[in-house]
């Protein structure tokens, strides 16, 4: 079986449906997993963005959590 033959056969028999480059999902369980993952990634992105911004400042939360330095004695998490 060539790769092209296999690809054609796969596309003809898959249960996935694509619309405009996106995969169309209806399973509630999967959509929940997508939403959960997307929201976690959004939060992670926001934290990374905040840290990048903070790095530009003379002092900030990321420095405060460093093992030594001005704020390290504070009972931070």
């Amino acid at each position: 079986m060539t790769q092209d033959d296999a690809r054609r056969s796969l596309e003809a028999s898959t249960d996935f449906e694509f619309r405009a480059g996106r995969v169309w999902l209806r399973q509630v369980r999967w959509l929940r997993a997508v939403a959960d993952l997307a929201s976690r990634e959004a939060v992670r992105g926001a934290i990374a963005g905040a840290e990048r911004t903070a790095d530009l400042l003379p002092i900030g939360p990321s420095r405060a959590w460093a093992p030594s330095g001005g704020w390290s004695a504070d009972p931070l998490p």
Partner: protein
Amino acid sequence: VRPRPAAARYRDPVWLPRQIAALDDADRPVVLIGGERFGVPFVLDALRSRRRTAWWALARSAVGDDVAQGNALAGALNRVLDAPLFGEALPYTTHVQFLRQHAHDLRPLWIVITTERADVPVIADLVGLQEAGYRVVVDWRGDGAPNLGDPAFDALARCSVRGPDELRLTHAEAGAVAPGGLGAERVAQLWRESEGRFSDLIARAHVAAQLPALAVPAPDGPLSAAREGEGVAPDLAVRALVRDGAFVEALELAVLAVPELVGDLIRQAGPAYQERGLTQRLHLLLSALPLPYAVLERVLEWRLVAAVAAGDVGAVIPAVDAHLAAHVAPELRARRAGVMANPAGFAQAEAAVAARRTPLTLWQYGRLHPEPAVAARLLEESVRLAEEVGTAFEVARSAGTLGAKLLHQGDFARARAWIQWALEVFDQHQLRDGARRLVLVNDLAYARVLTGDLAGLHASLADAAPALDGTLPNVARLFRSTWAALELVSHRPEAARDLLEPVVAGSPRGRHAAYAHQLVRVWHELGDHEEAGRLADDAVALAAGAGEHAELVARLARGMADAVGWSAAGSDPRDPRGERAADDLLDVVLAATLAAELRLPAALHYLLLRPDAGHHVPADLARVLGDLHRAALHLFSGPPALFEPVWDQLRAGGPSLRLSFFGAGGCRIAGEVVELTPRMAEVALALTLHPTGLSRDALNDFLTPGGQAPFTSGGLRGLLTRLRSRLPVSDAPYRWCVPFTADVVEVGERLAAGRAREAIALWQGPLLPVSDAPGVREARAALEENLRQAALQSGDPDALYDLASRVGDDLELWEAAASALPTGDPRLALARARCRRLEHEYG
């Protein structure tokens, strides 16, 4: 009086109960034509909540893949039965046969399939289950209405059709299903706009009432409403599917849209496909993968596994070899070793394990290692490592292979322990590979036959084997051959013959002799040495050119036939069969790479021919021979009358009088069969149950039913004189004059020692079943009650299940079996079903 149809009882305008009642009333399978728009998923969901219903969907990807269909059907059945009765990785036809075989216990049960296709065999096979008493519904989702006149739709044409007209809501029903507060006029308008289609009406009504859309029921969990699906970026979707544990679907999506994720994903998805027997689909997926992803090391590993399973290795082998030429790749190398001829394969496996010791590399090296002790050590290490760093599947695989290796070597007791362990891991972790599990079940059964542990075996083989016929022919042949071995050691040679004849007739040429030699053994037990000789000659003719192994096994068959034929005909030195048999058998005895199950019968038949040539038997085989359980000795030998001297030589001593009172019964003294009349058998039982002796009056009481005239003094004396002419019986008090063994005594000893499992295995059925003598009746009832109590007290699931199956409708035993069987055991569902039925019957 014909009962009023359920539909007529629903005069209230309630749509769902009307639909359910119509399904209840149908006297044929039903096809629902209307799909989601007409609310069929809601009807099926309601059916599922009110009746025991296994609902599954035929996915597009499963069309043409009997195993994928089997997995979906098994999942639905196990969910409704709340037990893993149906394994995965098996074709759906196996499950359909099992459903037919166990209809009595599994009904009432509705089986529903949602499908876009009607021209696939599974639809006709499911519709056919209605004849077995199941209720069958086909939820048609194809384009447009099916053309029931078209032969492709034959299966649906056998169904009662409920189409849009029957599924449409009435005006009054619309009022009942619409959210409250919309007002009658608004509901009427929505009903007209939706033309009575349930889902359309509900969707519009929910929008109007500003309610969230209703999820749509489906076999594997709800779907969002048709208009509320979501287009998701494929990479995010793949990661979400992985989070949900849907590795099979995740890999398919990744191959289609995000191939760069396949390299990481295959680590989890590969085993998931393998475990579910979806190697055909895996082969298609990985064949569709573009470069460079197709030649990543881990992808190549699974491409090789899938290609081997699909029998299409042409494209992958060069890619694997090119990779191995430039990389160490221990696991890929170990996989490659498995599909190479020896000695190259062994060298690859050795190189793989030298590079890294993993459960896989050790497993392959151990599997291929020719030195038995080293092979066993390697496989044990593989099990240990799998327990530390591997998966449950790897533990089960290595333990199962170790068990098979030990079986091959003749270490039956250790084999049994390891295979049992593999099976426990399988069930505890609910591993899905049903085909692999069946091989373990078979190997365990065989090891148990050879170690004389027969409790529960008959039921488990008889339950599994018929469902495999025509669906997994190789596994079915294995099961029937093991089952035949069980029948033979249980003194039912006719049953063994009936099982083996079709196996021999249907086996491929390379395997023909392996089954033929077993059937030769059975013909000997039945006393038909001519038939055994004919079969053996055929086996030799068919094995010519089929390879050295097949030829050697065929010579074993001929050697066995000649040895027994020669001995039974008087051991005439001029009879050429004697010499030829000795040559054939000694070659098999000396072939160290052959399995013990072939070398042992060769050795026993050789000793029959040459009682003084025991020194020709190699020491490793002689050790195994000396330790053989009586059941194995019986299985591998021939008619006891001929082989007693050989057994005595191995046993060196032991009682010479052997009595059997279960089932057909029997008696031998010094290896010679002694025929007893029914009355003599009753006397023999009386003497056996009273080893210190029995007075004339006591014997008379034992034999004579109440209300009948007792034996006269002369009559009893005459009976004893006739018995004494055949067996050594003392004067009064009557007792045996020689040491004896008897099956009834052995069962009693096991019971007294609290070994219920062994006692039940030895119990072959009622004591002298046709006898009406009061002593026999009393002993029979007492023994059966003792067995029952012992099983109940032991709590041993095998003992309980075996006894419950053999006794029949004893609710207490079935309840105890259901309580004792562990959650993962497939027999649990059958035991529960039997309890349900008996509770119902007993009111």
